[in-house]
């Protein structure tokens, strides 16, 4: 019996080929466009988040309690190296790095500018966030007073790879001290604060220059996706300032929230209209066959089978539409994931806000699963009203009546 119903449903769907095809195309095009847009938007945000985490705060950062308000050399985390070792042993901690920072003046023969010097351990940073991927020019090497400069800072000072710069600041004794640095590379992290004012040097060199104890640090950055890690760290280091990524970057959190709202609204509107489309087609299709159904009922077919058949017809269209949409969408997303959208015409503005000129999409399984659910729901709900009509049919009158 059920096999028969299925066969009937399948055949009926293709009774009016053009009609069915149109609906399938509609679903496919709308779905793939929507997926592409979602992918790009999510891609934008994720890219920003990723770059930010890798270049600066990680998933969690730890500072001395007063440091974020007053970035003074006095506020360092004591025994940061021990703390680092401790964290590395904690479950969920994937990578930990120490950073030393100081603010001062960076100068060349012709120009000078405010800058922040960041002392890093290159190998640790590589493990932490693949630092070498930020490279724009030159080679990542901090030996012998080498330095890596943020791209906007390099532009302001008009320096390039091989240039010599002098950084001056107050050291731990309060005296003004200068150090010669040689630009080995220029990086673009799209983290605005870094690109505009950061110069990276070897952490031990910075300790020597500032006269600070190499056991201490300004920042401990941790990468680890374990949700419990944050709680554990907050308890273990209650005397320090433990902050999660979103706490440090509320702007990004808002962007994420905004994207979610936007994508949801788009999704609802699009699925709503798809629903109307399927509804229209099914309604007409069923009403056209009122006579047919009337005959089936009068020959004894139970209403529930007719109901099933109609549901199946709708679902067939929905599934076919979904599959075409999924394939088309997957193709589009894959293309966008690799090649991205090229917005280099706007690259100046994008750079100011920390975006790259080419935006890549992300692909999430949820795109496909939620859409499947929505389309199935649309298919099923779209036939409820027509079904009601069938239920109320008086078979004899229907057969007798002229169309």
């Amino acid at each position, binding site marked *: 019996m059920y096999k028969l119903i299925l066969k009937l449903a399948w055949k009926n769907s293709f009774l009016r080929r053009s009609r069915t095809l*149109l*609906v399938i195309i509609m679903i496919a095009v709308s779905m793939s466009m929507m997926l592409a847009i979602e992918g790009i*938007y999510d891609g934008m945000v994720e890219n920003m988040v990723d770059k930010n985490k890798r270049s600066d705060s990680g998933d969690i950062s730890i500072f001395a309690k007063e440091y974020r308000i007053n970035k003074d050399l006095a506020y360092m985390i004591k025994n940061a190296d021990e703390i680092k070792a401790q964290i590395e042993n904690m479950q969920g901690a994937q990578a930990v790095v120490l950073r030393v920072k100081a603010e001062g003046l960076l100068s060349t023969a012709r120009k000078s500018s405010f800058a922040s010097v960041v002392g890093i351990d290159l190998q640790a940073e590589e493990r932490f966030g693949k630092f070498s991927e930020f490279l724009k020019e030159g080679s990542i090497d901090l030996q012998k007073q080498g330095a890596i400069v943020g791209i906007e800072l390099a532009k302001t000072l008009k320096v390039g790879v091989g240039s010599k710069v002098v950084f001056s600041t107050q050291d731990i004794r309060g005296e003004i001290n200068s150090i010669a640095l040689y630009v080995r590379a220029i990086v673009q992290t799209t983290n605005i604060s870094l690109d505009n004012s950061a110069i990276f040097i070897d952490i031990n060199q910075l300790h020597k220059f500032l006269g600070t104890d190499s056991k201490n640090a300004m920042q401990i950055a941790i990468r680890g996706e374990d949700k419990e890690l944050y709680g554990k760290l907050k308890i273990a280091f209650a005397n320090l300032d433990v902050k999660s990524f979103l706490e440090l970057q509320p702007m990004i959190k808002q962007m994420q929230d905004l994207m979610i709202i936007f994508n949801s609204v788009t999704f609802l509107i699009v699925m709503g*209209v798809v629903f109307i*489309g399927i509804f229209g087609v099914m309604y007409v299709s069923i009403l056209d066959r009122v006579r047919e159904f009337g005959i089936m009922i009068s020959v004894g077919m139970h209403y529930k089978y007719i109901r099933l058949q109609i549901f199946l017809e709708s679902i067939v269209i929905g599934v076919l539409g979904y599959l075409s949409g999924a394939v088309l969408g997957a193709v589009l997303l894959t293309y966008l994931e690799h090649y991205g959208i090229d917005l280099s015409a*706007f690259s100046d503005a994008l750079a100011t806000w920390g975006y790259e000129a080419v935006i890549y999409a992300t692909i999430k399984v949820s795109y496909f699963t939620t859409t499947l659910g929505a389309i199935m729901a649309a298919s099923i709900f779209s036939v409820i009203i027509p079904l009601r009509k069938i239920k109320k049919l008086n078979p004899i009158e229907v057969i007798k009546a002229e169309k």
Partner: protein
Amino acid sequence: MFKLAFKNILFYKGRSIATAVLTFVSTMLFILYISLQDGSHNSMLENSLKIYTGAIEIYRKDYRDIGGNEYLIQDVKAITDKLEKIDAIEEYSPRYETYGLLSNKEYSAASMVAGIEPNKEKLLSSLESALIEGSFLDEGSANCIYIGAELLKKLKLGIGDEVAFIGSASDGSFAADMFKVCGVFKTGSFEFDSSTSFVARSYFDELMNAKNRASYITLKLKNIEDADKVNEQIISMLDDENLESLTWKTLMKSMVEIMEIDAVFGYISLSLFMVVIFFVIMIYGFVNVSSRIKEFGVLRCIGLSKRNIFLLLFYEIALLSIFATLLATPIAAYICYYYNINPIVIDGIADMYKDYGIVSDEIPFDYNLFTIGWNVGVIYLLNFLSILYPYMYINSFRPIEATRHV
């Protein structure tokens, strides 16, 4: 044909209602979405502009790139005399900006200290309305300084406190004075509030030897949309290759570009909606037509030409579209108009987005008849396109075949 179209619409109620409703919805969506987008962009721009940047600013060439006393405007009066003649300029004021050190006991901070004409600034910028403590400047303010909230914090100052200023005058000579904190402002832009402060020119000019000199002249126009036109007027009137006159579009280039990007994405999303709606309208049209094959066949047999069939379809969709848009457009337009005058206020949005430069809680809609016009035009276009495929479908049947169609 027309009468037939009309009858058909009334007869096939289902399709008519669905198409009309969809068109109505899409028109509203289109108009309101674009209006909201344009409105919020304009508002963002105006608000950020209003803080300090003028609609047009006049500089000596190279001041913006190199800066320094060498590139100051040396004869302000010569320029302002000419500006008086341009009607479209609502207000103008020469500002003298300098960078120096502000110091309170052991706390010092580098700051921009600008000499302004308080009475003009009240009309030109939102400096006065950003006041949160004390009072704004006026011509008799003497050595009062109007300071940003974050800068105040940095220097650990309060109203009535004295702060030392050290800088260099317009001829490079040493300049130092004590200022008194008379007022504090908070514009919401962190950068601005932490590095700028203002003194009345009537006092500052003496100290800085800046009479009749300026870093630039800022202008407010009666209508910001005329910026480009008025700018050309100014350039030709000034007739001096050492001066440059720039509109806000250049001055705030990065913000303008971000909004363009935002608009691009907005249009992409909007086109998604339009595509979906287009398909659905087409499907309804098609379904309707495909169930009338027999009818069309008969019509063809009695002599109606293909062209007439096309006209019939055309009139049907035209009537429906016009009906729907005639309903939707005034309603949408009115909503735009209303919210243009009374913007939606979401408290706290300014705080949240202050890093983006959003300083106001208001979200106004844009009321622009031209925009609404082309929006509706696009809707019509889509609707008319939607009959193409059904029309082709009808023609794929030969008339006799059609009359026998089930």
